[in-house]
């Protein structure tokens, strides 16, 4: 009897405390006080938990730095920034639900993006409905920006840009070696998901422009664990380029299996190799592979908040004890966009903030940010690395590059 009584009391107390917490969060956001509250649903559990944590860490370090520098000044008054987080469990339905909750219950008027295109796609209609500005750095799908959303802004390059430059770089190199790019053959394999299919669409456009021929075009199933069948084909038709996009799995498999099956293609490029850590984990096997990335610490971008890209990376590593992935950098950049827009808007009215965001034209450690009328950042180019001796070297875009690409790729024996 005793135990049930205490149990009930504990339950009552617990729920009371919970109610109080909700109330407090809501009141805080509504009152505003000296704080501007942003909201974000991020994936802390589920399949995106690694990237979700990168996203959250990126937001946190941005907020921390802005607050250390005194916060943001909006028409003479200084505000500190704060983010309310929820865990979206890596599922779009949950993300949409949490966005509703952030806006309706917590009174959040500005939303930071979730991780992945799928979740962003689920949340964008909600922020649109409530006319809440939504700046994101981790939803790269092209279709996010063909819906006519007015309140959605992305600081990153959309996914169709990921491997476009690999094709253009190949054409450049071919000309240097006295070869007509029109004689080049492309083999490609993509996971059957919206992101990878966008990457594919970008490559097809670039290949058509360069007059290259696509000889293999495989779609990998999402549960892909083996690329042997595709690579056997690649080995047989001897293309000049092999392009793969299948998240971390695809990157790891293509590196490992091209080495094991001795599939020697002069240019091999893939997405997600930095998050798959191919240079670190498969250093010798990965030699010469090209990787697409949104950002790199070695780029010479600079801003007033963090300094250079490298300064940002150092600050991040000091704070979180792991090297800054681009997923974190683009998240931090989203926070900077908000801070800049608050100051220029001179108001906390979401409508005015939205208009200020649309007119953003800033340089950050992450690269230039300027949105086109659909809300995507078209000012920043993608980066291509080449894995060399267990490290990543920036080889494109050529004006920011550290070094020239080794062509053809020299596979380790």
């Amino acid at each position: 009897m005793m135990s049930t009584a205490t149990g009930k009391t504990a339950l009552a107390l617990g729920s009371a405390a919970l109610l109080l917490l909700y109330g407090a969060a809501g009141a805080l956001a509504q009152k505003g006080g000296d704080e501007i509250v942003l909201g974000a649903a991020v994936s802390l559990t589920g399949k995106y938990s690694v990237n979700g944590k990168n996203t959250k860490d990126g937001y946190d370090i941005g907020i921390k730095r802005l607050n250390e520098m005194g916060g943001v000044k909006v028409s003479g008054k200084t505000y500190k920034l704060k983010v309310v987080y929820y865990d979206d469990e890596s599922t779009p339905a949950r993300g949409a639900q949490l966005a509703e909750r952030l806006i309706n219950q917590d009174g959040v008027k500005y939303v930071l993006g979730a991780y992945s295109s799928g979740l962003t796609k689920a949340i964008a209609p909600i922020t649109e409905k409530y006319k809440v500005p939504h700046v994101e750095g981790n939803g790269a799908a092209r279709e996010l920006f063909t819906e006519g959303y007015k309140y959605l802004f992305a600081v990153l390059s959309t996914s169709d840009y990921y491997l476009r430059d690999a094709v253009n770089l190949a054409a450049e190199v071919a000309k240097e070696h006295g070869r007509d790019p029109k004689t080049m053959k492309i083999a490609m394999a993509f996971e059957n998901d919206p992101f990878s299919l966008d990457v594919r669409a970008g490559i097809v456009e670039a290949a058509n422009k360069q007059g290259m021929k696509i000889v293999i075009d495989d779609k990998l199933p999402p549960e892909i664990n083996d690329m042997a069948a595709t690579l056997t084909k690649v080995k047989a038709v001897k293309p000049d380029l092999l392009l793969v996009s299948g998240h971390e799995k695809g990157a790891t498999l293509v590196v490992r299996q091209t080495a094991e099956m001795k599939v020697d293609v002069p240019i091999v490029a893939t997405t997600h190799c930095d998050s798959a850590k191919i240079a670190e984990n498969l250093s010798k096997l990965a030699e010469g592979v090209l990787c697409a990335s949104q950002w790199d610490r070695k780029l010479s971008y600079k801003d007033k908040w963090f300094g250079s890209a490298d300064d940002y990376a150092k600050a991040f590593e000091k704070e979180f004890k792991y090297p800054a992935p681009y997923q974190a950098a683009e998240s931090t950049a989203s926070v900077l966009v908000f801070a800049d827009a608050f100051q220029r808007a001179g108001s906390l009215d979401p409508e005015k903030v939205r208009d200020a965001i649309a007119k953003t034209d800033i340089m950050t450690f992450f690269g230039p940010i300027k949105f086109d009328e659909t809300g995507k950042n078209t000012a920043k180019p993608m980066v291509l690395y080449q894995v060399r001796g267990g490290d990543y070297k920036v080889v494109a875009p050529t004006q920011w590059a550290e070094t020239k690409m080794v062509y053809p790729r020299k596979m380790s024996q």
Partner: protein
Amino acid sequence: MDNLRLLFDAPVLSVQLLLDGILIGAIFALAAYGMTLVWGVMNIINVAQGEMVMLGGYVAFYLYKKGIHPLFGVPVAAVLLFAIGWALYRLVIFRVVDKDLFISILATFGLSILIQQLANEFFGADVRTAESGFGTYTLFSGAVTVTQIKLIAFAVAILTGAVLLWFLRKSRMGQAIRATAQNARAARVMGIDTDRVYAWTFALNAAICGASGALVAMTWIVHPYLGLPYTIRSFMIVIIAGLGNVLAVFATALALGAAENFAGFIFGAEYQAAFIFGLLVVILVSRRVWLARERRYLA
């Protein structure tokens, strides 16, 4: 059908596909041995089969991280997974063993989700590999490659199959397992502790899956969501091969691996799985027709 023409133009590709298929088939066989055992003896379809493979993969990966050659992961994973399998039986499986098949499917489905999420929590969602450092043999002046790790996996699969056969035929526990499979009640009457038999069967299944998982991590990759394809493949293999028939399981697995590889080559990777499931339907239908005819003769 360009791909088909490619096969005729360069027949050596068929050798590559066949070899690769047979060698990966051996790894499927390992996962399927246990499923046929658990299904045959306990009448449980273990949906968490693939998750045990995944756990085995992580054992190999963590050994590799510690600087120990991941090949030791094969026995270590087997031992660890045996213990986990035993514990799972004592915690969950014994409650559903005599129940409806549907209940046990639900229970093991729940287990599979739980194990997946725990792995995600503790090991992280990163894609990992355990580098075995083994090389590659080349045949036909480089046109065909065979990785040594796949050959090792093949050898492990044959060895495990042989040991399993010997164990079931000769050992005391093996005989008890077979007796229980034939008639659990009669076995109990004869003084066999069927509860213990079930625990052994389930733990043995987990151990074999663990060993195959270690090989998977060395051959390809390991991540928390690796399991499902292995569960589905073992399920298919057992359906075609029949319950409790280790040799048929092995043969079916090799055939499945080869078929899958050829399908992936000819139709493209996106139809690899679809082709296999199509094949399953054809096999089941034709077997039914064949069995029905057989029954008519008997009548």
